[in-house]
């Protein structure tokens, strides 16, 4: 059960700081989270600025340099068409990180929302929301994807342009298939938390339901949400590559990390660098998100030690 008063020492708030500054101070004390924030920031900057600085073409085919090992000319090596992997990772990283983070946020926000509402209400609202959850869990992803692409690709392309339209569609689709576990976990947390004394105390003090939820229950149910968020980032990056492999995501020549990993999987005994580097990139994204999440939890609820 979450959220009872921990017995260990707590971090005493410093006098004279606003809540935001206090939260930031506590975040900084969590060293791993602090460094992860920098690392993630570095990754984001790298994929934003990198392609402008490393001016090798992303789609430059050079069949003579096919499958070459990392060297000065190609720091991360090349794939079987001789395309530079560093350039491709930097360029594709924009999409992978954007899709990973956006899809994760979508899944988490939708999941928390539905889980919180279901967790606080009883009776038919809970039943209806759980029916919805069960429905989404039962849907086979591929036919739904094909249907959604079929229905929405052209309208989105008209309204938002090719790349933005596909981006919105992919984020909606990936996020839309990952919110269910978050919802159920949050709901379960809410069930046990809403009976706790401190919530009762808040109610006695006159707190309305939204205040109870936002100030008291929600911060204490973040544990599984954070774990889900880290897992969802990795899953979203991989899912985008699966979509692309099926021809449903971005056009096939756009080198997202998941796609590069997928393309390189048959060459593990010939050119291991091809799959190794996107794998490391995804791993780093996952690692940093996880520690940042831990730090956020610590920052938002000072009674928590970890």
């Amino acid at each position: 059960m979450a959220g009872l008063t921990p017995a260990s020492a707590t971090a005493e708030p410093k006098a004279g700081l606003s809540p935001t500054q206090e939260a930031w101070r506590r975040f900084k004390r969590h060293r791993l989270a602090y460094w992860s924030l920098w690392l993630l920031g570095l990754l984001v900057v790298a994929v934003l600025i990198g392609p402008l600085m490393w001016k090798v073409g992303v789609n430059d085919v050079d069949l003579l340099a096919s499958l070459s090992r990392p060297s000065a000319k190609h720091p991360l090596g090349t794939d079987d068409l001789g395309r530079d992997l560093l350039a491709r990772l930097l360029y594709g990283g924009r999409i992978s990180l954007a899709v990973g983070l956006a899809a994760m946020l979508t899944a988490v926000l939708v999941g928390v929302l539905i889980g919180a509402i279901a967790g606080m209400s009883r009776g038919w609202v809970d039943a209806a929301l759980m029916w919805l959850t069960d429905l989404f869990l039962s849907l086979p992803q591929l036919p739904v994807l094909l249907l959604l692409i079929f229905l929405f690709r052209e309208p989105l392309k008209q309204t938002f342009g090719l790349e933005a339209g596909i981006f919105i569609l992919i984020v909606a689709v990936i996020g839309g298939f990952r919110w269910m576990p978050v919802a159920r976990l949050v709901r379960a947390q809410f069930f046990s938390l809403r009976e706790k004394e401190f919530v009762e105390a808040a109610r006695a003090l006159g707190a309305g339901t939204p205040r109870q939820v936002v100030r008291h229950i929600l911060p204490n149910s973040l544990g599984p949400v954070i774990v889900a968020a880290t897992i969802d980032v990795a899953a979203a990056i991989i899912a985008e590559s699966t979509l692309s492999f099926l021809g449903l995501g971005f056009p096939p020549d756009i080198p997202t990390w998941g796609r590069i990993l997928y393309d390189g999987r048959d060459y593990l005994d010939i050119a291991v660098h091809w799959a190794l580097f996107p794998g490391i990139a995804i791993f780093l994204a996952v690692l940093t998100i996880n520690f940042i999440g831990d730090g956020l939890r610590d920052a938002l609820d000072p009674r928590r030690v970890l």
Partner: protein
Amino acid sequence: MGGYILRRCLIALPSLLGISAVLFTVLALAPGDPFEELATNPNVPPEVRMALRVQFGLDDPVWERYVRWLASMLKGDWGYSFVSRINVDELILQRLPTTIVVIGLSQLLAIAVAIPVGVLAAVKPYSWFDRIASTVAFVGFSLPTFFTGVLFILLFSITLGWLPFVYRSDISSTGWQFLWDHFKQSIMPITVLGLFQAASMMRYVRSAVLDVIRLDYVTTARSKGLSERVVVLRHVVRNAMIPVVTLVALQMPTVFGGAIVTEQIFRIPGIGSLLIDAILRNDTPVIMAVTFVFSGLVIFFNLVADVLYGWLDPRISYR
């Protein structure tokens, strides 16, 4: 509680029907044609193809097809695969034993690994054990099964030559040799899938235990002189189980149709590969049958989880 269970069981059936209606509509609207082979074959005159479509009722309105499907399901007739002209229930039953053995065992492996490792990691957070276990977990769920599967095959089948990587459902040996042959061909897919699931589950277990481990009553239990083992097992784990039960309930239905990639890589004739083949060939009866069972399992296991919450934490009430 009894009232709650009864209420939930009563609404389970209509909710299953509701889900099946949505599923059927989605499948009917999704692009794809079960008789594409005829469309692209130059020898087949279009009239022949149209006649087949009429014969299988593919051009009728969606609601009419749904009612027809529902009526025959209720009579026990699960339909007839468009593609292989075999009864759908026969097709599923052919694949059920393999699925339960291989995919089922991998789920059990995942739980058996995740819970102890997660608990141990949480009991001593940020110790070397925790850091290693967490890092391995991060690597585990950053790398998709299509990647680790190939890696395992390269290592164990090709380089070392210890294990076959093509799954055979028709092993002819008997007795101990039979078990040993089955073990050799199943251990890789079970491990690949099990470890992938275990990676994410371990992190959830760790998080859930961490939420509990520094609370008042745990300190009380320790100060009462109970051994660490009893403290952990009797007081900590049970109370941390709610998220874990939620997750296991979410995982269980995927045995029936979820392990698509692993089944494809190792050529395991399970229900996951049946489903994906049916989807790609637009074999609607098979897709409907499998997803119908799948949604039944989803509803069932989530109901079990909800009931278990009440047992695990008596303060949870369902008014």
